[in-house]
């Protein structure tokens, strides 16, 4: 797997689109987090208490979860590029098996997931220590498991994007299909189905890993909805990730390149 990752890095590191999308992720997340203390709730500014440990972890990972779509788009581009350059075909000729192709992309998913989770963790430490009005040092790592949930969530989004990339092969169409599924198709399914069923759907499972902070208060207005807790969502999320990888492989195996 490390040799496959090394080859992927040879392709990605000189690629401007890769850095441009990562820069958007890094800068936007920082700017949004920086501006979050100015958010006014019920006429009161959230202020520096926004960054207090341990509450910062669920808040930060919830905000970061919105950028998973961006990571998914990045994955789709890296896969569809292989089709448009026809390098996927050449690499299978040169010695890759189809399983190697999926594993190579999955190694990128893991690396990006870990890098983004690490960045989120460092941001949490930076803002929690540097910007909060008081720092409870004994609570710095309390609830930091949300960063791990975020890692699984990011891997889940990118694995689904990987499947769409292999399925559709054209970047524009694959990105559109991915966004449509995540933002239109599944929400419609959620709307039609009872919570007891829709909570097990992929996007809902993944979003359950980083629930909206203060969701209970929100639901006092909108009405309660049934969802898995982050811990409960972990196993189905891992199963979905495995399923997306297996489906990507089966798809690649059954098709001509």
């Amino acid at each position, binding site marked *: 797997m490390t040799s496959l990752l090394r080859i992927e890095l040879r392709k990605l590191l000189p690629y401007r689109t890769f850095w441009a999308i990562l820069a958007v992720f890094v800068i936007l997340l920082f700017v949004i987090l920086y501006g979050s203390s100015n958010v006014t709730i019920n006429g009161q500014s959230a202020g520096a208490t926004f960054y207090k440990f341990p509450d910062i972890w669920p808040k930060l990972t919830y905000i970061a979860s919105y950028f998973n779509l961006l990571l998914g788009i990045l994955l789709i581009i890296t896969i569809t590029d292989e089709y448009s350059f026809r390098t996927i075909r*050449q690499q299978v000729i040169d010695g890759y098996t189809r399983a190697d192709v999926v594993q190579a992309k999955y190694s990128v998913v893991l690396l990006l997931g870990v890098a983004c989770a690490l960045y989120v963790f460092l941001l949490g430490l930076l803002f929690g220590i540097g910007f909060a009005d008081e720092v409870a040092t004994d609570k710095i790592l309390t609830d930091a498991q949300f960063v791990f949930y975020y890692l699984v969530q990011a891997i889940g989004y990118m694995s689904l994007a990987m499947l769409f990339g292999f399925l559709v092969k054209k970047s524009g169409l694959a990105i559109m299909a991915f966004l449509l599924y995540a933002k239109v198709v599944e929400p419609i399914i959620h709307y039609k189905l009872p919570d007891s069923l829709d909570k097990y759907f992929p996007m809902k499972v993944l979003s359950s890993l980083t629930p909206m902070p203060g969701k209970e208060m929100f639901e006092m207005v909108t009405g309660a909805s049934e969802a898995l807790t982050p811990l409960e969502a972990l196993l189905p999320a891992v199963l979905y990730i495995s399923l997306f990888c297996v489906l990507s492989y089966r798809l690649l195996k059954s098709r001509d390149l």
Partner: protein
Amino acid sequence: MANVLDIQGLSKRYGSVQALDQLTIGVPQGSIYGLLGPNGSGKTTTLGIVLDVINASGGSFRWFGEPLSKATKRRIGALLETPNFYPYLSGEENLRITADVKRVDHSQIQRALEMVGLAPRKQNKFKGYSLGMKQRLAIGAALLGDPEVLVLDEPTNGLDPEGIAEVRQLILNIAAQGKTILLASHLLDEVEKVCTHMAVLRNGKLKAEGPVASIMATNDLVFISGGAPAEQLLAVAQSLPFVSEARILNHQVQLVLQTGVDSSELNRAFFTQNIALGQLTVRKKSLESQFMEIIKADKA
């Protein structure tokens, strides 16, 4: 001579189109084997299947007597259709990726670049290369790992005459090192000039196969005249069991002899009929006329 590639009854169907139909051929070790056929005859499909990028609908193939595996892939270098590289990377960076995929030491990259004459331009981005340079880079990539077999699909496609001559010479140089080359082309001239063996495909079916020399030699044209009127010569020729075709053309009789029959036998046969031929000319058919006859026979 052992075969490096054995194809048995290979078929491929795309919906209602039978792209390849029960193809059975063997590529002898050390040969330059040409797959010849018009566009859409199944050449690229055949190569795609034996190179693992197209799934066959039926049949089987074996490389070096074994099913295709990672280990056997390392013994093959291939260029299928267009050169496929990352446009934003340099020639050298692209070859590093190829070397890693093939698990070949990077020290071979410079040698491959020199062999295809791209060493001075190795730092240039692939997207800035001319078509000829792209093609040469692809051949360089195929040569990485010093493969025993080189598979080239239309290697001179889109090249100018100078580029075509360069690539042909390169192929001959590589073959001189004892490597087997499997070459698909629709250019008859290319196959005739470069190949030792060939298979002719049409509509996915095998129409002829064997050493180029034997295919070319089997049906030489013989022209005879003198010694008797053309009509009498024709009548005698038609009575001979080893003449497969005879007709009058410009006051001469044009004949096609059966495989393995020497023109001296013809001379002897006429002599026994008391006809001393005034002229007997053997004209080797070009591969083009040979190919057209195979195709015509298929159409009929």
